[in-house]
């Protein structure tokens, strides 16, 4: 069985208690891409946040995740050492770990969501963090380790999906 099939099999087993399918908020939006989120991310985008600065940030975060599932054209960077600072999807160091983040760089959000591709147009969001809490190299390493640990907890021993080129990860992308 291919890696993406193994990942799908595991998603089906975890769905509803540890992983949740996240369709776009707008009722009529299409969803050609699939996003599965951990309970941590689910709560970050679905909690009834108060209508304050924090609530606005989390709604903005949800808008970017919805853009992914809606099939919007997105900028993506596979090389963490040579990327546009505000690209929407980016692979983080070290690239061989295949951890990516969906970035909400707008001043209204400044949230990073970490996870891995589970196949073509299918992403698993496992952890998230406010950008201002990712200051030092150590902060980044800790967050990436946290994401990897979460993957192991949910998917072990299945490896993360690894595409030969960006064409195998995503439709409608622009390499930034």
């Amino acid at each position, binding site marked *: 069985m291919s890696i993406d099939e193994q990942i799908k099999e595991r998603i089906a087993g975890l769905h509803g208690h540890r992983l949740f399918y996240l369709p776009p*908020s707008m*009722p*009529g939006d299409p969803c050609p891409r699939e996003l599965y989120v951990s309970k941590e991310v689910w709560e970050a985008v679905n909690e009834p946040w108060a*209508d304050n600065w924090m*609530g606005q940030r*989390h*709604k*903005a975060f949800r808008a970017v995740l919805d*853009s992914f599932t809606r099939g919007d054209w997105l900028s993506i960077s596979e090389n963490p050492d040579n990327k546009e600072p505000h690209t929407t999807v980016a692979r983080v160091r070290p690239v061989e770990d295949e951890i990516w983040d969906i970035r909400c760089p707008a001043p*209204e959000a400044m949230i990073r969501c970490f996870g891995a591709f589970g196949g073509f147009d299918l992403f698993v969001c496992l952890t998230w963090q406010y950008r201002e809490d990712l200051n030092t190299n150590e902060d980044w390493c800790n967050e990436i380790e946290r994401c990897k640990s979460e993957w192991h907890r949910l998917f072990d021993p299945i490896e993360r999906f690894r595409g030969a080129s960006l064409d195998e990860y995503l439709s409608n992308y622009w390499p930034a």
Partner: protein
Amino acid sequence: MSTYLTTGLHKPIGNEKIPESMLNYLRIRLRQRIHSMILREFAQSGLSQVDLAARLGKPPRVIHRWLASPENLRLSTLSDLVFGICGGEPSDAIEHPLDAPQTNRTLPPWLADRLDGDRLHERTSSPAKNASTKANADVSYEFSAA
């Protein structure tokens, strides 16, 4: 501080203040959609960034930043970009996405099939296990419909 809870999106009601978080969702959504439109047109144009930079008389790094980031573009910049890419102009149409029928609240077919298959398997194998599996499956549908 307002304690209005941002449980979902809804259309404006009377003279009730629209939650800022909902306005923010729609702002970011529009920014993402405009960015998507620009990237789609640019990809279809076959232009290089250098070509586009030359057409618009801008440094290539500015063009790169506009393409890479869903920025809060000025209308004049948007007009320049779209005309520079394809000789067109952005539409002035207004959409009503909250009036659209709920077409995206079902699970992807592959997942629905597997969950149905699992439930059928559990139902025919272990009544005790069946209860917990069904509960999980119900939760999943409930979440997907939230």
